[in-house]
């Protein structure tokens, strides 16, 4: 934390903080809404992992694109989808970013480069590579980012997608969010080598680094290098982020048995938001007042988003089969 990223201004630092808090507060409300039965479908929160989306997406332009996972609210918010649109979508409303068609695992907002969260593990890696192919073919300097969990690493999509991006030198940043578990299956049981970056360097000849995924500045710095490289036409890279999910796999699921209370507690102490907050204060990069102002602003935004979502209309049933094709038959 100390040496790196001295170049970031207070505004930039607070912006990172703001993104993390925005994700946290939005999801806290969504979790509550889920408990109250207002979120009709599944809801996988990103609580504890916010530093990754915040650190990566701060390096992206609006016309860069992100391909996300089942745990994608953080990616969506960090990429610029409004909390209103995210909340409304989870509540199943017509004003949601997918007009109620998608829900948590199918958030789409191409206007700001959010090319979809996903109910299927794996495809984000392939599609991320494909967007890189488009940008390279079109001679654009846009960059593509694919997020995925440790659970996707053993999947064929990882092998095929990373390799294609490597051999064709595509402008893609692969971000592996290793939170140690895929649902309740530990990563250590899914592989004999959990060092994803090492594997990617050796097997695919791709630049790859491993960072503390709970350290937003470490993520930000690695992403800056990777995005700059991709934008300059120097090919893909992978960032392995070691992190931890602080809530159950999905809202409403039990969280016992597969991980110890001690383990969860040890990671709770490393909460990326609390850690960053105290660092900002210790390093005098922001004062309490500034931080409080951010918290307050976010609280208002999130309250408004939930109100917006709750008061929005449900989609018109007559539209259930719209948009299957580009022009209606």
């Amino acid at each position, binding site marked *: 934390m100390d040496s790196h990223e001295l170049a970031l201004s207070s505004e930039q630092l607070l912006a990172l903080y703001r993104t993390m808090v925005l994700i946290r507060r939005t999801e806290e409300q969504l979790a509550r809404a889920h408990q109250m039965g207002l979120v*009709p*479908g*599944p809801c996988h929160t990103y609580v504890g992992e916010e530093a990754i989306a915040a650190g990566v997406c701060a390096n992206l332009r609006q016309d860069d694109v992100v391909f996300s996972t089942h745990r994608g609210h953080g990616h969506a918010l960090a990429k610029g989808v409004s909390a209103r649109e995210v909340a409304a*979508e989870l509540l*199943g*409303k*017509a004003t949601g970013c*997918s007009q*109620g*068609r*998608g*829900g948590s*695992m*199918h958030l789409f907002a191409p206007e700001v480069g959010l090319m979809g969260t*996903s*109910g*299927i*593990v*794996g495809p984000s890696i392939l599609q991320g590579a494909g967007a890189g192919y488009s940008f390279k073919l079109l001679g654009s300097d846009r960059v593509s980012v694919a997020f995925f969990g440790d*659970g*996707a690493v*053993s*999947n*064929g999509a990882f092998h095929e997608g990373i390799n294609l991006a490597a051999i064709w030198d595509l402008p893609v940043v692969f971000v592996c969010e290793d939170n140690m578990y*895929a*649902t*309740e*299956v530990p990563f250590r*049981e*899914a*592989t004999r080598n959990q060092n994803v970056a090492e594997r990617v360097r050796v097997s695919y000849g791709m630049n790859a680094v491993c960072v503390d995924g709970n350290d937003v500045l470490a993520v930000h710095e690695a992403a800056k290098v990777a995005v700059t490289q991709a934008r300059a036409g120097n090919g893909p890279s992978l960032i392995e982020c070691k992190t931890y999910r602080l809530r159950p796999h999905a809202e409403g699921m039990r969280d016992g*048995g*597969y991980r110890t209370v001690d383990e969860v507690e040890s990671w709770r102490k490393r909460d990326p938001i609390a850690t960053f907050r105290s660092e900002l204060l210790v390093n005098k990069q922001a004062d309490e007042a500034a931080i409080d102002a951010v918290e307050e602003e976010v609280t208002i935004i999130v309250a408004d988003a939930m109100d917006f979502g709750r008061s929005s209309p*449900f*989609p*018109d*049933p007559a*539209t*259930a*089969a719209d948009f*299957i094709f580009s022009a209606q038959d």
Partner: protein
Amino acid sequence: MREITYTEAAREALAEQMAIDPSIFVVGEGIGERGGNFNTTLGLYEKYGPMRLRDTPIVERGFVGMCTGAAMTGTRPVVDFMIVDFILDSIGELFNQISKIQYMSSGRIKMPLILRGCFGIGGAAATHHSGSYYPLFVHIPGFRVALPSTPYDAKGLMRTALTGDDPVLFLEHKLLLNKRGHVPEEAYSIPFGQAAVVRSGGDATVVALTVMLQKVLAISEELAREGAEIEVIDPRTVAPLDIDTILESVHKTGRLLIVDETFGPCGIGAEISALVMENGFDDLDAPIARLNGMHTPTPYSPTLEGVITPDHAAIAGAIRNLLAE
């Protein structure tokens, strides 16, 4: 008779057979210690350990292909895929390997492999967790496809799957999992290819698949009070499909409707309609009708999800139309 849930019934058949047949093993994400996302293997890990209850990474193609090789060499794998949409990543193994191994080897290699898990629309699971896909497995030669609609059928069909030598797709509609029903304690089998005539009647035949069955039965009771007697048939397996039972019924009633939650085009209803056309044309007093879910990916929002599958009004309307033709 004792009442247990659909999931318990299928699990009981699995537990009974695992106790008898040491070559049975189960693979899937979370089917080990955790007992399965849908409790399909609850309590079995403690008895049989990790070689027979094998938690896997998220590699649907990998473990389906792995189980293919296992089935070829003396064991009996059960792929517990959780949600059927996930095994689309293994269709190459399913359609090019599993369904063809017995044929390619001229019958010298058997393929006792079971694929089991959830399917269907409900609970705002949205389009990556709401698929059905069974018509594809009817189109491709080489599969048995079981669609139990009651706890009783779940147990009996599961046992048939676990004691046969062919690949079986065993699909459990997510809205049926917690339904309770009478299930004998002892082991029993329900042969594949034997439809159940769940209700007798002479005025029209309705073929109802999986989750549609209870809706159709309820509506039939309503119509009975109006004097119309509906014969309700549950095919229970769609490969093989017991067309004879359907033809017999149509011979009696002259009218046929097929109610199926999943897509119409090239679906089960199309196949049944074409078969009855070919083998029972002269029995028909009215055109055969199909009632299917809307031909669309599954939307998330309840107001959308609610209208894409045949509901009470739609089914009742379709039956009334059929009777009026």
